[in-house]
């Protein structure tokens, strides 16, 4: 059952004195209940903006986001629509997302109140994320990055989400804590039957936990597929470049393939296919027309 549908979403950032930036330029994506979708791409490709739009933190310029049959509206000063409280987010930096002046138990209790849950204690949630119960009375500064992120996850889970969103939840953590926290998020989401949209630039972690992978480039989703299939047979040249750039720990001393050039300025995207200036197999048609089909948005893989 599809829980979250993002359809042809466009999100624009306006800064005075700067040209309009289309951070998300027509992206479509679905997440089903109990499914883990990994969204990957280079920094600046718009994946975080997409996540924020799903939570209502960035307004959509066009396109729609539907959650469980309800349209997602931007957050305002008024109370958030109850139905949308089922979407909860875990942010990138646990040093910034927890309130330093409140005990972590009180912050988790906020989530419980949202869900109208009077039975569960904050300590129960700490236990679920693998932390001791008595941590509830402490303040965030007493914890390491990995522990803080677990607390942030506990807080998100307290609101009984049916859709959990992780916006680079592991990139601020130590290497050894990354895989652990990612696995924890997956287990907790799947266990409670919620969907998980996991955003990361670290492909090796996404591969570990995602059922499906969506690859994003310059505001567009260029390839979607089952994780194992995408990994074994990447079809879009960008996905190939992305996977080819991961060095293998085989001791052979092979330098990974380099993708030439930088990500173009999203305020001034190239004509035609957005990837063509960096694409090793670009054809004439790529410079002129943009591939708008899926699941692989590339002229080499045009559906018949």
């Amino acid at each position: 059952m599809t829980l979250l549908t993002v359809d042809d979403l466009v999100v624009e950032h306006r800064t005075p004195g700067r040209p309009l930036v289309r951070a998300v330029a027509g992206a479509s994506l679905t997440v089903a209940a109990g499914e883990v979708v990994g969204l990957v791409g280079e920094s600046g490709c718009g994946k975080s903006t997409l996540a924020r739009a799903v939570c209502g933190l960035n307004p959509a310029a066009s396109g729609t986001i539907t959650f469980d049959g309800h349209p997602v509206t931007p957050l305002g000063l008024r109370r958030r629509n109850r139905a949308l409280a089922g979407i909860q987010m875990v942010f990138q930096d646990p040093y910034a997302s927890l309130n330093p002046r409140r005990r972590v138990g009180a912050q988790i209790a906020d989530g419980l109140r949202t869900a109208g849950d009077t039975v569960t204690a904050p300590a129960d949630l700490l236990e679920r994320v693998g932390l001791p119960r008595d941590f509830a009375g402490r303040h965030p500064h007493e914890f390491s990055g990995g522990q803080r992120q677990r607390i942030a996850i506990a807080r998100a889970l307290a609101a009984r989400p049916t859709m959990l969103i992780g916006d680079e939840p592991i990139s601020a953590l130590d290497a050894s804590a990354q895989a652990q926290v990612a696995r924890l998020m997956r287990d907790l989401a799947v266990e409670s039957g919620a969907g998980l949209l996991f955003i990361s630039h670290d492909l090796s972690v996404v591969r570990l936990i995602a059922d499906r992978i969506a690859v994003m480039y310059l505001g567009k989703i260029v390839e979607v597929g089952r994780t194992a299939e995408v990994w074994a047979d990447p079809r879009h040249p960008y996905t190939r470049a992305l996977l080819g750039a991961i060095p293998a720990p085989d001791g052979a001393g092979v330098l990974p393939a380099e993708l030439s050039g930088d990500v173009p300025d999203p305020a001034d995207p190239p004509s035609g296919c957005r990837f063509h200036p960096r694409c090793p197999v670009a054809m004439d048609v790529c410079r002129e027309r943009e591939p708008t089909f899926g699941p692989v948005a590339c002229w080499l893989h045009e559906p018949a």
Partner: protein
Amino acid sequence: MSLLAISDLKVSIGGKEILRGVDLDLRAGRVHGLAGESGSGKTMTGLAVLGLLPHGARTSGRIALGERDLLAMPAKELNTVRGGEVAMVFQDPATSLHPMLSVGRQLTEHMRHHLGLDRKQARARALELLGQVRIPGPEAAIDRYPHQFSGGMRQRIAIAIALACSPKVLIADEPTTALDVTVQAGVLRLLRGLCDDLGLAVLLVTHDLGVMSAVADEVSVMKEGLVVETGPRGQVLRDPTHPYTRALLESLPGETS
């Protein structure tokens, strides 16, 4: 020939032993990888070489740069080595570069100090360095500020700064961890190329065994302040003898495991 030899290096901070007798040997033109999980003392080993350990750290052992022992060196003399003969590249170029100084200023300041160049010579050398690390349009780039560059370009600039005084030893602490994989590939190629062309001895600190496998010639694995295994790349990564190295390799996702 060994350029930098660390022997029986012990570091303790606040009564806690961080390093418990580390031995490493860096040779010219070779990349020596230092692996291990966080808290194993990889970064501390790198910092000890430059005398950048936190205040109150007690050290023993020997870090020999040629004939001289860096640990026993007076602070003044160490200042001439640090940034001159031994240079460092840090993890996050967003924080290791000064946000309010132009790239040119950051590239020339230590050159003028260490090498005694005048402004013109330093600028010429800075332009040459920016070209060497493949920054497009060095003439325009030199007057820009760090925020005007992407993460990969910033790390290239940080490498250029480290190379400015023609060091013999380069310590790179997780130089690609903050970068995207596609950008990482470019920076790794650059590091490898510079090591080969300039005969640098590179100590590459990283937790990523893939990165290690791509550029390192020798690999050392650290655990709890000790080097548990050292050897040529192919041997350590394909046929590890220490159970901890094996566990590290097995914990990786992939077809090989």
